[in-house]
């Protein structure tokens, strides 16, 4: 018999209690992994898009943590475009919209982006049906794959945006590495700018590729950032810009910060629930086995082996809960992505890193939850068993 066999046998003794502990802890761990997964996927999706598009700086209005609250004059965009340090600029007008579905009901909100034909985003977009937007298109729209599915629309259909006059003809369906682009729509820049800002020549923000002449590209990006942030529009002198590297941008977006905060809050709750659950299970187990543990001590087991036994049992429970939690998390994310309200914002996959983080945190839960019962078990005297006789 191996020591591990002994540990497993102790756990299978109370099958129902073990199963309930694993399920209870698994649900807590699953919710933790799912939320960490959502947070991670959203951030990764945005970061990878910037990476693929070789974006060095994301420029927004300073002091506007909500992306859609940022309004920048086209004058400033053009000033940046003229900078010798800048290779390319892509501006956009981004807002949230609703559309009437093919069944006549109003669908869930999604992102609509007004892009010029030379926008970076078109470069990594895969047109799965129809065509891309062309210069001169009017009242044409490209639907992301997920949005097209949610609205039940194909190329040739017309989309009626709620609150927008004439309907838009669907000229293409596309897939994108950015999940909320695949869950959104792209329309001609000028039209969406006019809808969003009237006659004002404003954009929501823009992305910048810095011209890199030397191997020290970080210094060049930093120089461009400083220059961009120093720009002022003479007609709106109080309008200031902030230029962020993509990772800093992802960190700063308030929606992502909210997701991250909620993820960690749920993680903290899950950890607390897990620790209490394991503490309860293992303390009960130790109390029930006072006599047995005393006998183990009597036949020569040192305190250390008793601690290893209890901690081993706790860690097996934690590992089983982590595995159950990962499966539950994946199932929850897959189920979530069937819901149109959220499938344009989250991806159903769990990154191995997230699962590993979930496992690591669950092992931590195991260590914390098992420590007291193990300490208590180790303090039992061999004579306890004899006295119970």
């Amino acid at each position, binding site marked *: *018999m*191996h*020591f591990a*066999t*002994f540990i497993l*046998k*102790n756990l*299978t*003794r109370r099958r129902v209690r073990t199963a309930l502990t694993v399920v209870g802890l698994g649900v807590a761990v699953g919710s933790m992994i799912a939320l960490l997964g959502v947070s991670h996927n959203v951030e990764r999706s945005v970061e990878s898009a910037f990476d693929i598009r070789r974006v060095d700086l994301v420029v927004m209005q300073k002091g506007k943590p909500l992306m859609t609250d940022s309004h920048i004059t086209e004058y400033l965009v053009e000033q940046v475009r003229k900078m010798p340090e800048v290779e390319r600029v892509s501006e956009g007008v981004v807002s949230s919209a609703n559309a009437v579905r093919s069944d006549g009901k109003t669908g869930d909100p999604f992102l609509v982006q007004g892009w010029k034909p030379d926008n970076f985003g078109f470069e990594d977009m895969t047109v799965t049906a129809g065509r891309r937007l062309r210069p001169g298109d009017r009242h044409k729209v490209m639907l992301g794959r997920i949005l097209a599915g949610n609205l039940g629309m194909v190329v040739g259909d017309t989309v009626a945006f709620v609150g927008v006059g004439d309907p838009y003809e669907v000229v293409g369906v596309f897939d994108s590495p950015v999940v909320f682009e695949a869950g959104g729509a792209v329309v001609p820049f000028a039209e969406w700018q006019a809808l969003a800002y009237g006659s004002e020549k404003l954009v929501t923000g823009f992305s910048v590729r810095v011209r890199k002449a030397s191997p020290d590209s970080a210094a060049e990006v930093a120089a461009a950032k400083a220059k961009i942030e120093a720009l002022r529009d003479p007609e709106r002198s109080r309008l200031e810009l902030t230029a962020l590297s993509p990772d800093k941008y992802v960190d700063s977006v308030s929606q992502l910060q909210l997701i991250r905060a909620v993820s960690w809050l749920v993680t903290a709750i899950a950890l607390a629930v897990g620790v209490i659950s394991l503490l309860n299970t293992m303390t009960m187990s130790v109390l029930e086995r006072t*006599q*047995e543990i005393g*006998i*183990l*001590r*009597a*036949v*020569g*087991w*040192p*305190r250390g*082996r008793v601690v290893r036994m209890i901690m081993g049992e706790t860690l097996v429970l934690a590992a089983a809960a982590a595995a159950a939690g990962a499966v539950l998390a994946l199932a929850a994310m897959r189920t979530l992505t069937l819901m149109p309200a959220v499938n344009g914002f989250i991806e159903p996959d769990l990154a191995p890193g997230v699962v590993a983080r979930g496992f690591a945190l669950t092992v931590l839960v195991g260590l914390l939850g098992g420590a007291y019962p193990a300490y208590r078990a180790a303090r039992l*005297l*061999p*004579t306890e*068993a*004899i006295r119970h*006789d």
Partner: protein
Amino acid sequence: MTDPADHLLYAADVRKTYRDGDVHAVNGVTLGVRDGESVAITGPSGCGKSTLLNLLGALDRPDAGEVYFRGEPLSGRRDLDRFRARQVGFVFQSFFLLPTLTARENVQVPMFEGPRLSARERARKADGLLELVGMGGRSGHRPSQLSVGERQRVALARALANDPVLLLADEPTGNLDSANAAKVLDLLTQLRKERNLALLVVTHSPDVAERADRVVRMRDGRVVDDGTRPA
């Protein structure tokens, strides 16, 4: 004065007082056990027999006095767990087998702290010991599937797991009927002789005491008669 070094195990004026009630469970006992010798400790309930056995087996520490093993004081050892694991085998009245483990696995429990053996070697050794106590055919059974007599034989095999030189038994036949008690006693006697084990047995039973080389009688925590043979 008798030299502790002449004995396998020697208790010199050991005392144990329980704080709750200030009870002098063992009150100045001096007692020696030689290699291969069997000693029965008898006396009325509450006279301190089991407490003395616990002190001699290093399950508990005396408040005063000293227990020597091969002339070395146990109080100077920091590895009493190792001492119990490798030198002492315990047999209890209630067997104390682990209910989730089979007989073969129960016998292996002390081996985790014995000489280093692989899992296969441990299993093989356990099978050998179970064979020795006549339980070879029941090695895959759990305690709940065994009779009380069989459980005590498995417990006896467990006590021998690490080839101890000293066997301490607390009322080993206390829960057995006369037939099973006789079988267990025969087995104890046989194993003691074959392995030259020193045996210290606490008992109320005249049958058990009769088989010992020496009978020690206790009353109120003291030895009142050491060395008499049963009448």
